[in-house]
């Protein structure tokens, strides 16, 4: 199987990730529960992962890295934790349902005043509309760093400058960029950076988290056991405890920690360069095939994602042929990005998404290009 669905999850991981997980699974106690050796092993392992994640994402304080089970949880924690009834928030048409649904729920249940900034027919954010939307008092802008459908990268520095000028926070969804390019929250002006561990970071599923700047007033998304301040009726307010009720995914975080080591040893710039080459190789191979429509803006910086359609074929049918006849795994359908499909005009049939990783080989790209060509010629 040629695996080209890395925007959903990366399947090939560094060997050290699995090794670290097995070690933690068989040796770690419960972090922050007791001070015997096994508990401290877990506490130290998780603390070390916090320090690595903070350094990786340019977060000033390791104690402002909070772990979660995935980025959907991170985004829920950030959105529900910082927005209050009646607040105004702005998001974009590029977003995944992990951003849209928490916001829609607050809109329905807590009178959230929600504005959605449109995208153009190439899936690019309309920054002018964002600026106009920010003229009213706004609590937060929630924005993806890169579309999981088109791969278009959003200029978060520009977004943060606009947001901060009007006093709004920037909550960034870095699902498609964390681990695939340098993402520094200080440099980009991100107030809350949400990440997942199992995609570009090459860690295990069941991991993710957020990095927050200091001084935010959190209302925890979940409350419960923390291992500290047990006689307090309320959740301790200190980071990261305020956002981490319940036992953490120790083995998962151990794997994520090993993955961060791996990426640091390879170098993010090298990974970004390689993924860019793979993306260009694929794009160059398919863009001129008769009947193929490629979505997105390829003139600018982008994530390693290419979405396309072939003639008027249903995207599900194309993905099925790719899997059955060519052994190529891709993702068809709506990709949890309903507004992006609406902007691209692909609501009816979806799109076929090819996504690459550091471990993708040139020969796999060439095989996928050939398959697209043959399917297009058959129609």
């Amino acid at each position: 199987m040629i695996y080209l669905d890395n925007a959903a999850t990366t399947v090939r991981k560094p060997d050290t990730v699995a090794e670290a997980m097995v070690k933690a699974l068989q040796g770690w106690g419960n972090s922050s529960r007791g001070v015997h050796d096994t508990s401290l092993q877990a506490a130290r392992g998780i603390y070390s992962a916090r320090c690595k994640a903070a350094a990786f994402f340019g977060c000033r304080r390791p104690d402002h890295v909070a772990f979660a089970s995935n980025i959907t949880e991170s985004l829920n924690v950030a959105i529900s934790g910082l927005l209050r009834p009646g607040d105004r928030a702005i998001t974009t048409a590029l977003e995944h349902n992990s951003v849209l649904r928490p916001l829609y729920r607050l809109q329905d249940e807590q009178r959230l005043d929600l504005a959605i900034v449109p995208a153009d027919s190439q899936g690019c954010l309309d920054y002018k509309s964002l600026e106009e939307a920010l003229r009213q008092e706004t609590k937060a802008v929630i924005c993806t760093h890169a579309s999981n459908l088109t791969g278009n990268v959003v200029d978060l520095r520009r977004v943060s400058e606009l947001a901060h000028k009007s006093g709004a926070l920037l909550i960034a969804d870095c699902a498609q960029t964390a681990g695939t390019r340098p993402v520094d929250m200080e440099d980009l002006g991100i107030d809350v950076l949400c990440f997942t561990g199992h995609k570009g970071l090459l860690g295990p599923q069941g991991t993710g988290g957020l990095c927050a700047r200091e001084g935010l007033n959190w209302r925890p998304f979940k409350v419960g056991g923390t291992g500290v301040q047990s006689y307090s009726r309320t959740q301790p307010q200190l980071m990261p405890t305020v956002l981490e009720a319940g036992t953490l995914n120790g083995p998962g975080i151990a794997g994520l920690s090993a993955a961060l080591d791996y990426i640091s040893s390879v170098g993010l710039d090298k990974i970004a360069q390689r993924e860019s080459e793979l993306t260009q190789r694929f794009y160059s191979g398919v863009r001129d095939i008769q009947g193929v429509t490629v979505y997105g803006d390829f003139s600018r910086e982008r994530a390693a994602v290419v979405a396309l359609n072939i003639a008027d074929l249903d995207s599900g049918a194309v993905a099925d042929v790719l899997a059955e006849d060519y052994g190529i795994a891709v993702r068809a359908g709506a990709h949890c990005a309903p507004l992006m499909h609406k902007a691209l005009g692909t609501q009816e049939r979806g799109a076929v998404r090819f996504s690459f990783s550091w471990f993708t080989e040139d020969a796999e790209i060439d095989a996928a290009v050939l398959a697209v060509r043959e399917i297009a010629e058959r129609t």
Partner: protein
Amino acid sequence: MDEAEINYYVLFDNYTQGLALQELLQSEAILARITPTPHVLQGELSCGMALLVLPRDLEAVRACIDRHGAAIHEIVSLPCQIRPRRDRFC
């Protein structure tokens, strides 16, 4: 009371603070052993970890905390209730 019969605990609001300070103390070769937060303090903190430091190192610990702006809850002293049957500290 003899100073040797007093335990000095650095208390924290969570484990992250405690582990961070222990790392700083270790980097300055100051002994500090992780210990459960004394339960006598329950109601204020309860549960969690504390760092047990030697009386002779107390000033160095305070200086390290100040120098790095390390977050702690407070430093408290409690009479030593049990004399462990061992001659090691950390």
